[in-house]
């Protein structure tokens, strides 16, 4: 007959094992609730009012702030611009940092120096990056235009042309963040078990086949992280655009966050419409993140 095991009765002191971890989490949770959750919910409330900075009383206006967005051409422009920036900035970020990481992982000469050099732009502030590129691309005094002119090429005014302003900002952004994602990819590459690569080589897999069949699937979790983080950041782009073009020329680079800033913190300080746009952005980021999780959810296992 099997011997039954009787569990000891839970003593009064055992409740501490349950409660104490939450007490440790408490400080963070308090700050999270106060500075994240509360503003989020209060913003939702403001979005259905006619709140304006300096106006003591507010009235509920229902979904008027949201419906007004449908006929606001600048809001629509800012949404398109933000989506365009996100798409144009994400595609290079998927490939360029990975390529650099793969090259560095192969043990090239001056690897440490190159890694630092590629990472260095990420250490600069957004304002610094924006100013550097604004000067580089200045049509009158910028070196890029100057030297191109010297070889007979007369480029458009990069930041003054509606066709080239956004690509210029994308270029500055990709230059700034490539090093950061490269380091993440590099760490992930170094985490891949060598036995798998050796096994693939024994099976006759070449460099590309080994990368595509072994390395790339194992990098999917990292790529998911990179893509999600980058897209969340790209959808909230503000600083670099504000420094380089302030949303111009002719609203060609006006981002959604910048438009929220203009409506909520400039002019009449209309907080209601600004909060409504903020919630639209929040929902968009949330949906995009969910979609990405679903697309990347299958992980390679060996």
């Amino acid at each position: 007959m099997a011997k039954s095991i009787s569990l000891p009765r839970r003593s009064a002191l055992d409740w501490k094992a349950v409660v104490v971890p939450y007490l440790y989490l408490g400080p963070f949770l308090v700050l999270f609730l106060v500075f994240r959750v509360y503003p989020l919910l209060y913003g939702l409330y403001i979005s259905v009012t006619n709140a304006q900075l300096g106006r003591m009383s507010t009235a509920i206006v229902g979904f008027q702030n949201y419906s007004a967005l449908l006929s606001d051409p600048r809001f629509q422009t800012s949404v398109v611009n933000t989506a365009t920036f996100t798409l144009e900035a994400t595609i290079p970020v998927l490939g360029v940092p990975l390529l650099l990481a793969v090259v560095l992982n192969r043990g090239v000469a001056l690897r440490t120096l190159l890694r630092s050099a590629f990472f260095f732009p990420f250490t600069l502030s957004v304002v610094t990056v924006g100013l550097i590129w604004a000067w580089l691309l200045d049509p009158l005094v910028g070196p890029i235009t100057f030297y191109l002119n010297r070889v007979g090429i007369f480029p458009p005014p990069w930041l003054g042309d509606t066709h080239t302003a956004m690509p210029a900002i994308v270029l500055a952004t990709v230059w700034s963040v490539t090093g950061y994602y490269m380091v993440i990819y590099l760490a992930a590459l170094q985490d891949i078990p060598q036995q798998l690569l050796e096994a693939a080589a024994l099976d006759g897999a070449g460099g590309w086949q080994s990368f595509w069949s072994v390395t790339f699937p194992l990098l999917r979790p990292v790529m998911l992280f990179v893509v999600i983080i980058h897209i969340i950041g790209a959808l909230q782009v503000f600083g670099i655009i504000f420094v380089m073009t302030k949303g111009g020329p002719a609203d060609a680079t006006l981002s959604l966050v910048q438009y929220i800033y203009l409506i909520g913190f400039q002019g009449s300080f209309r907080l209601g419409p600004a909060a409504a746009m903020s919630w639209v952005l929040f929902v968009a980021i949330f949906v995009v993140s969910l979609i990405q999780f679903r697309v990347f959810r299958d992980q390679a296992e060996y």
Partner: protein
Amino acid sequence: MRYPHSAAAVSHAFTRRHFLAGGLVAVAGAALAACSSTSAPSSSPTTSAATSAPAAAPTTAPTAAPAATTASSSAAPAAATATTAPAAQSAPSGSGGAVTMTFWNDIGATNAKPYTDLQSLFNKQTGIKIDQQVMQIGNLNSKLQMGAPIGQAPDMALLYTTAIPHFADLGTIQVLDPAALDQSGIKESDYVPATWQGGMYKGKRYSVTQDVVQSALYLNDSMFKDAGLTGSDGKPQAPTDQTSWLETAQKLTKNGNYGGLWGGSSDNLNFEGLLWQNGTNVFSEDLSKSVLDQPAAIEVATFWAKPYAQLKASPPDGVDAEKAFVAGKLAMWVNGSWNVTGFNDSKIAYTVAPVPTLFKTPKVWSLGHELTMPMQKNKDDAKVAAFWKFVKFMIDNGATWTVQGGVLAANNTVYKDPQIAKDPILKVFTDQSKNWGVGQSTPKWSDAEALIGPVIDGIYLGKQPPADAMKSLAQQISAL
């Protein structure tokens, strides 16, 4: 066997309880710090107002120092020899002790010292202390908007004319007593009509104009000389109308340089000046809707597309016009009087000329600095009296402020002062005063200006047909 660590030693080790206690103390401290009241405005200037505030008018720092009698001279005016003797001021009546007035303004950069010196003089004469905080106009507007409803507004604030209707509508600033205005000796006849009306909203006065910035035409002397466009006196031949403006700009556009720029591609301020020149405005006279879709405004927009999109005589968007002018890449530039300081510092040879009349009437864009009294929780008669004394002091010392601070006083009686009358740059500014125009008295003005900039930028670049763009713009502004 005793372990090396005694029970007493273990009790001194850092345990989970210690960590928990420390965390709770840190959170409590943070909560207490967050709940503490905000400090009163400090007596020292915080930030200077030298940079621009996007979407708020004006778009660049409204300071100027017309120190040069000619463009190539860098001689400063005789700062210590203002011909107007500061008027004696008496201490505010009914005050049991010294009065201290908190004062928010955006007078920074090179104008900060002259302004502070005047405040010190005011203190010496009246015993009233000015406790000023200098900040960018965007920050000032938002702080005032937040502070007034909760009794955290300063005793005085220096606002722009176009902001008066907005703050008046919100109840942020006080109505000024007409009787007190009369008693102070400030007369309508001493002001240009546009400036006198600047402090009015819905028939009530909310401010008194202290000084005015305006547009002017800047000419690069060496570029004009190289192009052979100088008169017998060797000075640049300034264009005076639309035909001569466009012709001169085209002649000066060569070798990678640009002939002329009217403000900037998205410069709504100087665009407004052209609307006024053509007898129209942003809103209808009753302020009920925008008239930018009317022929007069479309005519202005059609001109706006000519210099760059059609003639390539203006620089493209994204060019720093001030730097281009100083670098000798831009020959003519219509922009604010505050640029004089920078041009003098750069030692560039330049001439200031009146703004050309491109359309029907010689209107010039201008904007005033308005002295206001924000709303307070409790009325203080001593501070009200002190406010009027400061207003009168700044009027009486308008010549000093103009010469030393480089900002043209609003009270035009000082324009006859010899130091002002003989300065060629100040003479241009004072001669233009009769043609000053200001924005319409509506709380929607700032929001309308924010919409105008991107649209005229598109017209400038040739991306949008002027008529269609203006019609769309008028709809957006009318919907405000």
